[in-house]
């Protein structure tokens, strides 16, 4: 059952994503000031949340890997970083498209944009170290992952700490019921899809590690 969990997540995500796209485009009214561009919100915000969640998971798993030299910790940290890379890139691309439509400029350099870009760059650095760095760079990679996780609360509170054009943290809670009804399927569909892909990647990384060990044993035997 545990092995099937990623596949089940992906299977459950598909109808939810189809339903959410249907709701966003056909059932949700346009926002009064932003018009159609507001429809980007329904996937931009969940992706931002998932990116932050993955950064935290990556940081914790990297800490576990550092302390216990755990193979599973290393696999979870790498899979979370990859998922954080994908969702972070999604946030950094859809945000400026939305900003260009509503603010008239894709990048205002406000606190939340900058801190999110910083988190994404930390994730990129972590992935580069894990993929191309020597074995001894594991500690540095884990430190980077922990730094990324520490950046997450700064991103969340950036709109409160500094003056910014970015919508505040309470915008989701203040959504009218018809928009809220479109937001939760988009959030749960995207979350399930990301968790499914994350689980599949962990499975692959663990299998790759086991194969490496099996190859060494087979070569010793030969």
């Amino acid at each position, binding site marked *: 059952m545990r092995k099937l969990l990623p596949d089940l997540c992906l299977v459950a995500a598909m109808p939810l994503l189809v339903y959410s796209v249907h709701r966003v485009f056909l059932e949700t009214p346009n926002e009064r000031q932003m018009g*159609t561009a507001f429809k980007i919100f329904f996937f931009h915000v969940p992706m931002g949340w998932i990116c932050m969640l993955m950064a935290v998971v990556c940081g914790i798993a990297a800490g576990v890997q550092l302390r216990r030299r755990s193979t599973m910790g290393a696999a979870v940290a790498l899979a979370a970083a990859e998922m954080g890379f994908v969702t972070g890139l999604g946030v950094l691309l859809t945000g400026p498209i939305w900003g260009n439509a509503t603010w008239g400029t894709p990048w205002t350099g406000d606190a939340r944009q900058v801190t999110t870009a910083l988190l994404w760059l930390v994730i990129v650095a972590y992935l580069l170290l894990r993929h191309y760095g020597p074995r001894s760079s594991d500690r540095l990679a884990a430190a980077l992952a922990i730094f990324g996780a520490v950046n997450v609360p700064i991103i969340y509170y950036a709109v409160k700490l500094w003056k910014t054009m970015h919508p505040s943290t309470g915008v989701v809670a203040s959504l009218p019921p018809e928009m809220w009804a479109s937001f939760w399927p988009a959030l749960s569909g995207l979350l399930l899809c990301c968790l499914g892909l994350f689980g599949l990647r962990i499975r692959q990384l663990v299998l790759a590690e086991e194969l490496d060990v099996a190859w060494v044993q087979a070569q010793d035997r030969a």
Partner: protein
Amino acid sequence: MNELNAPTTTPQPAAPTTAQPAQDPAYGPAVGLSLKEKEQVRQLEGIAAEKTARDYQHIVLAYGVLWALFAGYGIFLWRRSARLRADMNDLRRTLDRHPPGP
């Protein structure tokens, strides 16, 4: 003498009567705009509002980017999976050639 002491300033015209403030606080008097300019502004605002309500270019771009990213990651995972399967088959063949001793 009385004529000399008379005020020399020209008589000021009566102050224009200010428009009565509207009952609704959302509406204030438009100052410094002619009727023609006001109509132009209203027309441009109408065009902008219509464009905002019908402009799907941004959404198509944003959703296209989003699904392309997930599709790209899906393909990456699928290719990794295929490579792992091939590696596993190679390992099986190697083990068949060199079976474990007693």
